């Protein structure tokens, strides 16, 4: 592949992309004819094509684009009003240019002289008076069936343009739905089955997915930003008498608009740097045995909630020794400090303020912006930039930015004197719980929802805030925002829940970014900064690392000291019992009416099924049954106990043998509890039942 072919190829790619954009903008302009910015964008795109035509000696192409520019000049000057006439003529022009690009690719020539109809259409549109009512669609387009066909050639589009305001409305409506979901959840609470619970669960799932989809819809492809770099690099290189091509990948990765903007600035600087400092002149490259044209690769990819962009070039690379020497000579670091640096440390010097600005004295990248500014710029949106390099090769720059940040629908909660934002997408429901609905297991509070155990996390307590005194001492209810994060459900206990809001998220300042439980900060209408909670980090902070779904397989109760998680309970006769936590499905509190007893067996009416019950003592149950529903090999079995006490980790001191329960030692008091062999009890229950 010769250099000319490479340049031509770049021109064709760029030209087609420009045409695509022009086409979209023309269509958009028809709806909003006064959008001067869009008009300028079209002008710029055509101008770009024209400029390169001159460079490549493509006369006819240059001629038709020039005519198009004339019309656009008139439009921009307000001499002609945008309407169907100019739109038709310009769209016909787009198709003509596209046909020329196709021909150029196939035959390498542009020898077709401009169609008189097209030129006439452009001229007619330009001659139209501004006050005149829009004419019928362009005569030229009508006259040329091929052009019409081309105009209406519909490529299968996988995306459509949507007004941003519509997306905002969607987000608001989805937020409203979350509130409805919360109310329905309150109605369904306390029921362990039935149609209402099923309906509620369905709604909960659908609402969550809806919110996620709306958030997705607010993303735009990173290609919008990176697609402009092939041309930018080419122009810069041309100024410097060098050649460069830019390869792109991952253009489809979606990022928030605000992230894209920050990336655009950072990447522009990096590409300039690569062209200016990295890529050598063709002579130098030839001498080094490299292709004459330098290569810059920009690759984007998504990982979780982050977007990574990697920029590499095949230029001369960065000389760490020289960087270190320069940093010392500028007094940025001490000589001894420099001597101790390893390769990575020396490269890191490029981020020192004051270093890169003085080395970039050329016209291309010498704009007083250094890598330190790139880093600072990205840090503002919660991003990072790192640089690595293999000796003698071009550097690899890795940028890591969050996928979204701009606007997040939040629920505002109050805890003590402070208010916090909880991202609405994570909120399942808001519940008010009476004291009877909260279980206290050794200080850890739980809430049972539809039979599921939901740990409660007191925000004020977790944050070490002074416990707020209840406004009404008779009111012992608590408010919990039930959230779901990475498959874990838990309740955030707050003093009150205030209005939902659309929070414009700002990243935390670097000096407090180490606080993981916060994902950002927003400024409320009253001007007060308000912190946004990171629910995943909060769960980790309070030790909620268990999976939400119960694990059916239990580790074999092998001999030897082994630590297992246990649910501790007290039997009616005072014995202390321990059930492997992994086997606990749900905790149930049931009235005796739900008990079905026969001779020698007991079952619990459990929604659609009858649950075999095992008594762990000989006593009659009290007014209410405390039932630990366990999973076992044959399904589920309920163990009913006097009281549920605690969840804890304990050391297994005696492994079960010959069917007798094992013993565990637990807690600081070293109290011993009997380890319940769930499978043995289950088989008993089935046998008896």
């Amino acid at each position, binding site marked *: 592949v010769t250099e000319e072919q490479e340049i031509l190829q770049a021109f064709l790619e760029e030209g087609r992309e420009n045409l695509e954009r022009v086409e979209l903008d023309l269509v958009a302009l028809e709806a909003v004819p006064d959008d001067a910015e869009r008009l300028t964008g079209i002008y710029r795109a055509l101008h770009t094509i024209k400029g390169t035509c001159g460079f490549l000696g493509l006369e006819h192409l240059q001629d038709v684009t020039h005519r198009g520019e004339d019309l656009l000049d008139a439009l921009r000057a307000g001499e002609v009003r945008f309407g169907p006439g100019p739109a038709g003529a310009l769209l016909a022009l787009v198709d003509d240019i596209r046909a020329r690009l196709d021909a150029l690719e196939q035959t390498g020539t542009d020898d077709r002289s401009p169609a008189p109809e097209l030129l006439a259409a452009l001229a007619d549109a330009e001659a139209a008076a501004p006050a005149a009512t829009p004419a019928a669609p362009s005569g030229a387009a009508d006259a040329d069936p091929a052009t019409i066909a081309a105009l209406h050639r519909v490529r299968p589009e996988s995306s459509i343009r949507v007004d941003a305001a519509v997306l905002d409305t969607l987000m608001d409506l989805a937020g409203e739905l979350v509130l409805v979901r919360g109310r329905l959840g309150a109605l369904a609470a306390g029921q362990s089955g039935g149609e209402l619970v099923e309906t509620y669960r369905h709604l909960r799932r659908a609402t969550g997915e809806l919110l996620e989809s709306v958030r997705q819809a607010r993303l735009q492809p990173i290609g919008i930003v990176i697609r402009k770099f092939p041309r930018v690099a080419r122009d810069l290189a041309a100024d410097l008498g060098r050649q460069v091509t830019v390869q792109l990948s991952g253009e489809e990765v979606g990022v928030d608009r605000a992230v894209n903007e920050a990336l655009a600035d950072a990447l522009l600087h990096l590409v300039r740097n690569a062209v200016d400092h990295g890529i050598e002149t063709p002579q130098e490259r030839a001498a080094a045995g490299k292709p004459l044209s330098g290569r810059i690769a920009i690759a984007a990819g998504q990982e979780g909630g982050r977007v990574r962009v990697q920029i590499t070039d095949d230029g001369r690379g960065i000389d760490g020794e020289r960087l270190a020497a320069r940093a010392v000579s500028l007094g940025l670091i001490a000589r001894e400090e420099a001597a101790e640096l390893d390769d990575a440390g020396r490269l890191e010097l490029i981020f020192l*303020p004051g270093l890169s600005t003085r080395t970039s004295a050329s016209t291309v990248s010498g704009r007083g912006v250094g890598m*330190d500014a790139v*880093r*600072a710029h990205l*840090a*503002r949106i919660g991003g990072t930039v790192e640089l690595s390099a293999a000796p003698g090769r071009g550097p690899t720059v890795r940028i890591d930015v969050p996928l979204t940040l701009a606007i997040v629908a939040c629920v505002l909660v109050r805890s003590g004197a*402070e208010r916090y934002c909880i991202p609405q997408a994570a909120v399942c429901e808001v519940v008010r719980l009476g004291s009877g609905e909260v279980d206290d297991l050794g200080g850890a509070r739980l809430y049972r929802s539809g039979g599921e155990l939901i740990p409660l996390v007191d925000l004020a307590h*977790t*944050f*070490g*805030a002074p416990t707020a005194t209840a406004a009404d001492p008779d009111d012992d209810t608590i408010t919990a925002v039930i959230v779901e994060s990475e498959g874990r459900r838990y309740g955030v206990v707050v003093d009150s829940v205030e209005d939902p809001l659309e929070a414009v998220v*700002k990243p*935390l*300042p*670097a*000096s*407090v*970014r*180490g*606080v993981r*439980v*916060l994902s950002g*900060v927003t*400024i409320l209408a009253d*001007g*007060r*900064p*308000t*912190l946004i909670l990171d629910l995943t980090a909060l769960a980790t*902070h309070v030790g909620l690392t268990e999976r939400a779904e119960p694990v059916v397989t239990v580790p074999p109760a092998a001999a030897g000291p082994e630590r297992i998680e246990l649910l501790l309970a007290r039997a009616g006769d005072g014995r202390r019992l321990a059930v492997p936590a992994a086997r606990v499905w749900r905790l149930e509190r049931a009235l005796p009416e739900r008990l079905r007893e026969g001779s020698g067996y007991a079952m619990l009416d459990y929604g659609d099924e009858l649950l075999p019950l095992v008594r762990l003592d000989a006593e009659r149950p009290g007014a209410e049954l405390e039932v630990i529903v366990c999973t076992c090999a044959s399904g589920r079995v309920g163990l009913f106990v006097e009281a549920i006490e605690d969840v804890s980790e304990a050391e297994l001191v005696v492994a079960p043998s010959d069917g007798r329960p094992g013993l565990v030692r637990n807690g600081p008091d070293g109290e011993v509890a009997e380890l319940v062999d769930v499978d043995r009890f289950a088989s008993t229950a089935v046998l008896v039942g």
Partner: protein
Amino acid sequence: MTASARYCTFTVGTLLVGVEVDRVREIVIAPEVVPVPLASAGVLGLINRRGEIVTALDARVRFGADTTGPAPETHVIVGLDGETVSFAVDGEGEVVEIAPESVHPVPETVPAPLRRLLRGVAELPDGRLMVDLRAERTVAEATP
């Protein structure tokens, strides 16, 4: 430092601390500070400075000064690279001109945590000593 430089001075405990004049954005008295839970000691919280989120640091904690009593209300807003921070200081002093020859290295007997934060010690014409702050480090140290 090759030419004489102008410094804003502040008192923090018994220290007279200097920050280059062109880095000081403004001095704010008793701004509203929103606490940041689980932040390291010395982080007072966040301030909304005309839309910019600024971290407020208790300078007494950073400089090992006596921290009994409420945090000082004089906030010196300092522009660092990539971030703006506010140091809550005991008192605001005058602007001084420091000639390079009056700057000395920080004596080794200064406790290491404090020494790390200082670039040098300057003698003022009136005989007082002013410490030249490496403001970036005070912020880096604030991150747990």
